[in-house]
């Protein structure tokens, strides 16, 4: 792939911004509520400045969990979006979040179909010291990578996290759209909104919407390089063999050191009797989601990633002729 070659990509007419997928991750809850209040002004601005405004859908994903200020009511909503779960049989006693995932799929999807929204940005907070992270399933979705590059925030460290999961197995809300990513910002305790974290999220969403407007208007975005962190594995806490209670905490030398390279033999945990448990891997890796509250029950104390430098091409929106040719191409492929 030549870096100077500009890749034309389809327009993004419909974008969704989702908050409250986990009901106690409050930056997204308050931001989407605030954006809903301002929605008329946002859409009016789009129409005044641009002849081709994007439609911005604002969604509060899990209202019942939000009302109780809990992550979820019956089951984690952000694991309910696999094709299997969305299309499987639905009993009367189905968990609330399974029912809700079908509603969201009808609103933003159906997943995998031409009617799906073009981009889903799902807002999250973490108790881990991760700064601002984009989390996506692809390391070659140029739209998401370009949006990431466009976000410039001097006081907020930013990283692109890649979970190498196939479309068939993708499970999170952002997988409903043709493009999608989670915007994860920390550290913030669950059930709390911190002004600096809220502001970073607000600026992030604004810059994303600015980018989409520019893209849809025909702007060319130059290619370049992006560091991508690809998840390799999770590490659980040491646990008591009978009770499964944890027997150690994240080591003070590791706590809050997300994305600081972890070397073999570096401290991982400190047991309650004061011993140090060390990293026994052979490859230095980048830790993240260090001490995320919600992951205790998922058996994850921290996750580890490999860093690579990705080359992204220049991109622009397809012209109408290119778009029609594309669609005809698909049609003739189907005929064949």
């Amino acid at each position, binding site marked *: 792939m030549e870096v100077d070659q500009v890749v034309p990509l389809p327009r993004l007419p419909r974008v969704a911004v989702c908050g409250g997928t986990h009901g106690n991750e409050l930056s997204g809850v*308050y*931001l989407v*509520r*605030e954006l809903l209040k301002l929605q008329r002004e946002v859409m009016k601005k789009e129409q005044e400045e641009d002849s081709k405004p994007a439609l911005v859908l604002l969604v509060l994903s899990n209202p019942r969990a939000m009302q109780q*200020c*809990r992550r979820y009511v019956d089951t984690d909503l952000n694991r309910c979006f696999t094709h299997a779960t969305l299309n499987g049989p639905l009993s009367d006693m189905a968990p609330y979040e399974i029912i809700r995932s079908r509603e969201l799929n009808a609103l933003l999807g159906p997943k995998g179909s031409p009617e799906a929204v073009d981009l889903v940005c799902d807002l999250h907070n973490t*108790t881990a010291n991760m700064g601002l992270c984009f989390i996506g399933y692809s390391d070659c979705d140029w739209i998401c990578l370009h949006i990431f590059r466009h976000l410039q925030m001097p006081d907020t460290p930013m990283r692109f996290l890649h979970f190498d999961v196939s479309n068939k197995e993708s499970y999170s809300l952002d997988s409903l759209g043709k493009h999608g990513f989670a915007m994860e910002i920390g*550290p913030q*305790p*669950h*059930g*709390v*909104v*911190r*002004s*600096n974290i*809220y502001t970073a999220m607000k600026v992030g969403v604004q810059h994303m919407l600015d980018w989409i407007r520019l893209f849809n208007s025909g702007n060319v975005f130059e290619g370049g390089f992006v560091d991508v962190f690809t998840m390799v594995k999770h590490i659980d806490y040491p646990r008591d063999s009978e009770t499964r*209670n*944890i027997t150690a*905490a*994240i*080591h*003070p030398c590791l*706590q809050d050191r997300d994305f600081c390279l972890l070397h073999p033999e570096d401290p991982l945990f*400190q047991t*309650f009797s004061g011993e140090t448990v060390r990293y026994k891997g052979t490859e230095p890796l980048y830790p993240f989601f260090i*001490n995320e*509250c*919600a992951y*205790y*029950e998922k058996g994850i104390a921290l996750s580890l990633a490999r860093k690579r430098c990705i080359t992204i091409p220049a991109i622009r929106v397809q012209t109408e002729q290119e778009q029609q040719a594309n669609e005809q191409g698909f049609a003739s492929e189907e005929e064949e």
Partner: protein
Amino acid sequence: MSSYNNTARFSEARRVAIFGGTHGNEMSGVTLVNLWTKNGTEIQRKGVEAVPFITNPKAVEKCTRYVDTDLNRAFTPENLSAPGGNDLPYEVLRAQEINRIFGPKGSPEAYDVIFDLHNTTSNMGCTLILESSKDHFNLQMMNYIKKAMAPASCLVLMNEHPLLKYSTSRSVAKHPVGLEVGPQPQGVLRSNIFEAMRVILKHALDFIELFNEGVEFPPCTVEVFRVLEWIDYPRDANGNIIAMVHPNLQDCDWEPLNPGDPMFHTFDGKTIHYQGSGTVYPTFINEAAYYEKQQAFITTRRETLVASAIIKA
């Protein structure tokens, strides 16, 4: 207690309880109590029966603050004497049970000391919570702990406010002591916070052991922060929060807040300033559990209390 030559005499503090999990998602206390239930060597002291106890096991199991109602507000006289058996909220039943085991509250049979272990999302550091300015035993203990921890900070919050005082789990004992250590998110165990709480308890138990051996503690002064009032978030007509703790105030627990200082930051970017008549010392700033209690932070004023000398009776 009787005074003789201005030295206050207290009976031996033999029966001591350590409560964890009063709020089921405050992990330092849950972890310490579970640890000490399995192996209590660390909390053993000569002449002291130290009992570790999980006060709200159902909340701990669900890793939630409470199941039906806040246990740490449940020890009211009405609740403790309420009939009704299993129809009562879970935490009211628990309060009655705890009162039976460690009380009855206000009676001679009540436990001598209860330490109640808590965490907060606020940047309060190590804080001891005192319920009465006249409890010279507790004042002396807190003085001892502060001196033992120095130069590390351990501050004393005193809630004696007639309206704002609440009926805590620890209030069952003759000498109730609250331990509040933060910042720590709910449901998370941070190593440094855990170890800090452990150290506070070590010093507290050392004090009790010395006292029971007959050591006389001379008169001392103790700086405390006295609770003045709770300040709520600005809300709209529907009761929804419309502003956040201002970045200048966030994490500034115990630092002076002057009239005119920034206090809240609205979602659309405006600053709301503190309108009080004088300087106050805010704390419990942005505690997660207090959003539903309409409390963004509390204001305090600094006071120096005098504790008389104490000795075992």
